[in-house]
């Protein structure tokens, strides 16, 4: 009976951590101060089962697979135009309130137009030159899930 319980537990853990909550370790400074290097978190793969990603969501964007993923915040939705002027983010020409951005910057970039299948993602740490900050338009199918914690 104990063996059966252990087997059930193992299978449950496998399914949960493989297909529902994907464990990740944060690396890099892109999402500071919201998330720091070394923090452990989970990606909720089922977050977008019933609705599409929303602005402000922190999501993981896969590269070739899910061994290494980008962790970014969605600021631009499909069809929207994103631009940065004197560090302020603009969506369709309107300033976007971003209380999570603690480090001021002077980014000048854009406009970037998201197609019907693209989301504009960027890190919270804007305290680095624009060209050194990995960001841009991510196709919907690359968004693996939403950060759980």
């Amino acid at each position, binding site marked *: 009976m104990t063996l059966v319980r252990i087997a059930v537990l193992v299978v449950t853990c496998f399914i949960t951590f493989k297909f529902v909550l994907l464990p990740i370790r944060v690396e890099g400074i892109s999402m500071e101060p919201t998330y720091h290097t070394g923090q452990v978190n989970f990606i909720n793969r089922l977050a977008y089962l019933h609705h599409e990603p929303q602005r402000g969501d922190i999501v993981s964007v896969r*590269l*070739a*697979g899910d061994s*290494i993923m980008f962790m970014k915040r969605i600021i631009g939705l499909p069809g929207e135009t994103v631009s940065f002027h004197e560090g302020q983010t603009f969506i369709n020409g309107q300033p976007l309130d971003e209380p999570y951005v603690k480090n001021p910057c002077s980014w000048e970039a854009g406009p970037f137009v998201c197609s019907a299948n693209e989301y504009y993602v960027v890190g919270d740490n804007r305290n680095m030159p624009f060209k050194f900050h*990995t960001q*841009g338009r*991510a196709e919907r199918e690359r968004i693996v899930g939403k950060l759980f914690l």
Partner: protein
Amino acid sequence: MKLVSRLVLLAAVITLGWWLWGVCFPSVEKVVAKRMASLAKTVSFSADAGNVTRLAKASDFPGYFSVDAEISVDDPELGVHTLSGRDEIRDAGNGGFAVLPGLKVTFLDTTVTVGPDKQVADVSCTLRVVVGNDKDYGVQEMHFQLKKIDGDWLITRAETVKTLR
């Protein structure tokens, strides 16, 4: 009990046979993936690697590419940079092996798609690079095209993929 033992034994024999079959007659996908892993091993060297090791790796490196191979790298800072032909790739490799303090290259999430004639293959993967003893690493999504030439799988094209456009 005897039946259970026999079933377990049968399952073990089938598993062993299946594994042996895979080892003796690997699929084209496995052969290509192995080739990519071999490339990663060839271009990786530790910081304390001597000149002989570096020279040996530098001479092996171009052998993974076809004569007319092309490498296209789209760098956010430097723009698109292209190496055309095995000679240019060799020169770039020689420079890298001579100058870099050390290099550890890994191909992650490798997906191999073989053409219907089994003579060409596409490889998608994430390249993970550590230079020297650096704690940080770089990642880049990559796409390779390989062709079977004279029995060897050679890279005909390698290019960076823009994950975020």
